[in-house]
Each structure stands twice: as C-alpha cells, then as structure tokens.
C-alpha cells in the first residue's frame, strides 16, 4: 500500500517535471516573438507543402488507382514525425545535461519532455496540414477516422521508441551517430512511404510485416484514409507487442544511461 502511494507520488513528480521541461523547451526553441510556439506545428508544414506540391506535380495524378496528393500526404506526414523525433535524439541528453543537476530530473524526463513535445507538435501539424490541403480541395475526408488516427499515434509511438534507443545508445558510443545517418535516409525505402503492402509479392509481404513496424503504421494511416480503395495489411496486437518490447528495451537502456552522461 505504501509502495503504491510512493509510486503514485513519484509519478506526480515526474508529470510535473516533464511538463516543466516541455514549457521550457517551448520558450528556448521558439521564444515569445512573432509566431512563438505556433512554430511547433507550422515548422513541419514548411517542409511538407513544397514536397507534396512538387511530388504531385511530377507524378501522374493517380498511382495504382490512388490519388497522388493523398498518397504523398499519407506518406510524408508519418515520415516527418519519425524524422523530427529521431533527429532530435542523437546526443540529446548530453545537450541538456545541466538540468540533471536537479535530482528529480531524470534522463527519461528530458527525453519525454523534448521528444514528447516534438511528437505532439508533429501530430498537431498533421491535423493543420490536413485541413489546409482539404480546404484547397486536394484531399478528401478520410474514410475511417479512428483507423487513420491510430495509424498516426502508432507512428508517433514507433518514432519515440527509436528516439529513445538513439538517445540512450548515442551516449554510450559515437558509432551510433555515424551509423544512424545512412539508416535515417534509407528509412524512406523500408518504412512504407513508397509502397503499399498489397503491392508486394506475398512472401516478401509476410516477412516485411513480421519485422517492419512502420509498415503496419503506414497501412493503418492509408487504410484509414483510402478505405475500400485498397487492401490494408496490419495487425494491431502484433504491432503493439513489438512496440512494447522496444519501449521496454528503451526504458532499460535509459535507466542506466546516467552513468554515461557526464555533467559539465
């Protein structure tokens, strides 16, 4: 009983600390001038609009029977979430190590504060960009809102898992940062940005779905958007299982990363 009370007490402290780090990050990254923290969800749009515009111009208006703008939008927004969350993560603990002078601030809090805020901002920009493109008539309303929403939420969870592994491992070895650069670029090929699972040969599809969590996320986003225009392959319990395992590994690495972060 007392252990439980202590646990919830700790949880309250952690929530307070993570909230404080998020507020701090809002101020340090965007300040109070001009748009202020509205940049949080405007920034991704600056990337998204030109890319979507160019892509939909150079490609045919339909690909495999799917409208091009929608295909690129559902491909690019999850990629942005992943890129932004993981991009922040390399050596991110070292960069904020001065905050560790406050005993109640843990490396996990630093991670949840910064990368959590980044994930939230990117999710917000999904909503904003959707309406902006919908208003100009280039996107239709999604067929299945909950499925698309879950697709984006799982994308954020997946990105946070990889971000946590990168944050914890890059403090241990410099190799991680070097290896990550090419992998980060290659990600667009194996994430599901360019392909639907249904376009893959059956054998490859089974393997891909077994080992590639982002493919499930993409299938959910696109299945939610396109509905019966495509056949979506995803398995939510299996994806949840994979991401839970990754989360546990990440938390375990985070727990003793403190030995590897030196304070200035």
């Amino acid at each position, binding site marked *: 009983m007392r252990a439980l009370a202590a646990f919830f007490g700790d949880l309250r402290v952690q929530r307070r600390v993570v909230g404080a780090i998020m507020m701090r990050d809002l101020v340090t990254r965007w300040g109070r001038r001009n748009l202020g923290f509205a940049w949080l969800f405007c920034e991704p749009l600056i990337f998204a609009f030109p890319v979507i515009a160019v892509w939909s111009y150079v490609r045919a208006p339909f690909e495999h029977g799917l409208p091009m703008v929608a295909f690129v939008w559902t491909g690019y927004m999850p990629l942005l979430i992943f890129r932004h969350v993981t991009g922040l993560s390399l050596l991110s603990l070292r960069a904020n190590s001065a905050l560790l*002078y406050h*005993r109640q601030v843990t490396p996990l809090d630093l991670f949840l504060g910064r990368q959590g805020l980044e994930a939230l901002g990117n999710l917000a920009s999904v909503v904003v960009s959707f309406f902006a493109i919908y208003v100009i008539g280039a996107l239709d309303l999604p067929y299945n809102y909950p499925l698309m929403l879950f697709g984006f939420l799982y994308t954020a969870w997946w990105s946070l898992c990889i971000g946590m592994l990168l944050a914890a491992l890059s403090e241990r070895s410099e190799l991680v940062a070097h290896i990550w650069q090419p992998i980060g670029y290659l990600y667009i090929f194996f994430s599901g940005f360019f392909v639907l699972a249904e376009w893959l040969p059956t054998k490859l599809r089974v393997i891909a779905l077994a080992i590639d969590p982002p493919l499930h996320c993409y299938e959910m986003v696109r299945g939610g958007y396109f509905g019966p225009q495509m056949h979506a392959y995803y398995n939510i319990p299996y994806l949840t299982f994979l991401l839970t395992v990754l989360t546990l590994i990440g938390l375990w690495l985070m727990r003793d990363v403190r030995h590897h972060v030196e304070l200035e």
Partner: protein
Amino acid sequence: MIQVRDLCKDYYSETGKRVNRVLSNISFSLMPGEKLALLGRNGAGKSTLIRLVSGAELPTEGSVERTMSVSWPVGLSGGVGGTMTGNDNIRFIARIYGRPFREMREYVEDFAQLGKFLSEPVRTYSTGMRARLNFALSLAVDFDCYLIDEIIMVGDPRFQRRSQEELFERRARRSLILASHVPQIVKEYCSRALVMHRGRGKVFDDVDLAISIYEGL
C-alpha cells in the same frame, strides 16, 4: 542527515583506455544543522564530491544516503537557459520543485535585485547578474542542506555581504557543505572539515588543525 559511505568515482579518459579515479573511499556523515568545510587544492575532487552528494552524478562505488532535502550546487546554473528570461527560469525552477511561482519570484526579485532585467533574456545579462540570478534561484527553494562550491565570492562586496548574511545567519539552522579556499569563512562558520588531497579525504573535528594541514599541502 546525509550519510556518505566509501564513495568512489572514476572517469574514463577521452581515449577510453585509462581510468582516472577522482574520488576514492570518501566517507562522512552530516547531521541536520551541521556545517562541513571541504578543503583541498584545485583538482582535489571537491566539486566532484559535491556533484555526487547532490545526486547529479552517480557514484562508481559506494553510496550517498539522504534523509533531508539537499540543494543542487548553489550558484551553479543548473540549466538556466540563455534564451529564457529571468522570469522563465524562475518559473521552471518553481515548477520542478513544486513551489509557488509568485513567492519564488518575490524572493529572487528582492535578493538578486535585477529589476526590469528579470523580463529580459539571460544571455543579455552581465556575468555578475547571471551569478546573482543563479545564487538567488538556489536560495529561493527551501532546502535542509545547501551545497556550496566556492561561490561565496560572487558579485560586488555588497552582494557578497548579503549572500553571507542570507546563508550563514538567516539559514543558521540549515546544514551546509562548503568548498572554500577562504580560511576566515571556514573558521567562522564550519564545525568540521574534510581535507581532500588527490581524491582521498579525512574528516577533522578541529577546523584549525584542518586548515593548517590544508595550507601545508
């Protein structure tokens, strides 16, 4: 109280091959209200010891047990952000320590005397103003024990006088661990001293003796 047992701290050298033992087998305890001086030349391990006692870094071996609230090293920036205003920084500290912002702001305003600069970004502050803000922030949270790393000497003489008054007179019942090179301060306020040399340390109950040993190092 604070109980430090057989504390050791190793740092790896840049190439990762050599291990530098910065602290080795330090033990002491600190009762509520007690004031302990850390004496030692530069590089003796005082700052490392303070970081370990504060909990900012973890020991390689040994343990630190705290049954009273312990400050972060007083006067250290502790993540005071340059793009943040003085008020932002107060708000951040108030949030993570769960203190009311208004009270903390009043205290810092009164103590650091930064006036309208509190609503300016900290990067526009002079070194002295920054030190005053940092110092005020650590005193604004009420701790049972304060850790001080040679900071008594910040600011102009007037600010020094006020900080000493604030620390040693208004907080006379609080515990202190004080790393200082100034014998008068140690003699006047500390009841025991830990003399450190090359990562090792010994506690003396006789402060005068400790000082003479330190001066002979």
